[in-house]
């Protein structure tokens, strides 16, 4: 072998190895993060965390029961608002229009998807907090639903597009009207993918804290309904982590572990739903 060839072969070997190393490095960051959370979080997690209210700084113990409930409340309402809107908008994009208006909506949905979450928080603040003269759970829910809508829209559209055209034609040929075709044939055929998209969307918004900082704010006590400031897990993690108290840091770790567990379970189960009997051949 001449020198040139040896050189080329060694460059080949080195660079290909390097790409593998980079991949390993990236994936190891995930395990590092999870390991660190489990190590610190498991030590800090106890039954009180799920059943007690936060204590004032300096006191030992307490929990984040209100934040756990608050998170479910805020995210639940956000899902009630965001999922139907996103779902129907997705149906429109996939089934009703393929021209300028649909491309415009698609593009705007993608741009909305890329907007920093804190800016979405500003929108919900000026829409709801200003008019209602106070921070409220519902303002937080609206902020999160604004983030959820474009995600669900695009996912719904994507999976409906993967439904074979022949299914639609079959239903239409049997005399079904278009909306009947959509409701009884197209949507059921794409339902697994759409469910996956919805679960992933909810998982994504349930970890958001930036849009909640000045919409649902925070609360050391049980919230007083959807028009009152309400505690949420991500905001609680933030305030506890930047505080100066060791016991609050401990709580932040515990809350971090709980939050990541929820998010990972959602992600993995979404993947599972999709992998188990996908109703549509993926393109």
């Amino acid at each position, binding site marked *: 072998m001449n020198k040139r060839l040896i050189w080329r072969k060694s460059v080949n070997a080195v660079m290909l190895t390097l790409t593998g190393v980079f991949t390993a490095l990236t994936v190891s960051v995930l395990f590092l993060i999870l390991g660190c959370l489990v190590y610190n979080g498991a030590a800090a997690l106890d039954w009180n965390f799920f059943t007690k209210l936060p204590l004032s700084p300096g006191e030992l113990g307490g929990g984040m029961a209100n934040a756990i409930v608050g998170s479910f409340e805020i995210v639940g309402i956000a899902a009630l608002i965001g999922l139907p809107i996103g779902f129907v908008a997705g149906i429109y994009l996939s089934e009703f229009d393929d021209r300028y208006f649909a491309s415009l909506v698609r593009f705007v949905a993608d741009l909305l998807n*890329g907007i920093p979450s804190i800016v979405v928080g500003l929108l919900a603040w*000026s829409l709801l907090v200003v008019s209602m003269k106070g921070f409220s759970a519902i303002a937080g829910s609206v902020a999160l639903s*604004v983030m959820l809508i474009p995600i669900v829209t695009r996912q719904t559209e994507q999976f409906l597009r993967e439904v074979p055209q022949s299914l639609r034609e079959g239903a239409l040929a049997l005399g079904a009207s278009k909306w009947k075709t959509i409701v009884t044939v197209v949507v059921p055929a794409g339902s697994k993918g759409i469910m996956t998209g919805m679960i992933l969307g909810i998982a994504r918004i349930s970890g958001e*804290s930036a849009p909640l900082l000045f919409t649902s*704010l925070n609360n050391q006590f049980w919230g007083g309904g959807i028009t009152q400031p309400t505690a949420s897990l991500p905001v609680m993690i933030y305030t506890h982590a930047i505080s100066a108290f060791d016991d609050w840091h401990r709580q932040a770790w515990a809350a*971090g572990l709980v939050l990541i567990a929820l998010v990972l379970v959602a992600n993995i189960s979404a993947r599972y739903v999709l992998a188990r009997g996908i109703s549509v051949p993926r393109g």
Partner: protein
Amino acid sequence: MSTVAAAPASTIGKRTQTGDVIARWVAFAFAASILLLAVLLVYQLWAGSAGARHKFGWGFLTSSKWNPVTQEFGALPFLYGTVVTSFLALLISTPLGLGAAIFLAELAPARLSSALTFLIELLAAIPSVIYGVLAIFTLVPLMRTTIEPFLKGYFGYLPLFKGVVFGLDYLTASLVLSVMTIPFVISVSRESLLAVPREQREAALALGATRWESTWQVVVPYAKLGILGSVFLSLARALGETMAVTMVIGNDPSIHASLLAPGYTIAAIIANEFTEATGAVYTGSLVELGLVLFCLTIVINAMARLMIVATTGKGSKRA
């Protein structure tokens, strides 16, 4: 005979037609609500920042004062911090992400590749505040005690590494951002690489190119627009990233040449000061910062989407 048959047929036709028309309009209204949301967002940001826009004009963008007491506000330190941390983050995450994307798209067997891709997607699913918790409790002490004194010791003569070491600074924020943006670089780059036709690789290999040469000189250039798109997409994410950055940037509203000095970003100052802001000018200034951030990310995102559409035929066309 024909009249008997025609009558029910036409009523059925009418009934299904009305149903379709209603369904169409309902769906249209929901789709249009997305456009409405976007318009509402722009309007609220514009109207909400009126107090600051009228008082400072374009000077807002070039002033580096930030003083709630004297009601003087300028965006420059935050713009600087946002741009510096994001660029530095991409400087780290682009080569790493592209390398990993090449591995996943070109080298790894399909099963390994899809398993690893799933793990990397999980990395993208980790909430920002959790990155912040890890950064503040593990990365910051490490930076303060080990990495930054090391940098200062060897490169301290450079203005980039001057000053007292706190651990809460541009460099730490950039590192956190780089980890957070890698999954985006990887997933979009990987898709663009996978969209390159097989013949391109085969032709290069048939001409005697090594695996790396075929990848680097044929496949990557073919997918370069999509890869660039992935970088822009990550840049937009980095610019708007809030929680993790807020927790490690140090929160100092001034401009420093040193990467080891504390700084501030647009998203961080909104997160920190919005609830305490009083008066039209103070609140308006924060909303205007939001508007600036919005414009930055919209432009970069739009460019990214167009590039990704051009290479993979996906992006805005499909998923």
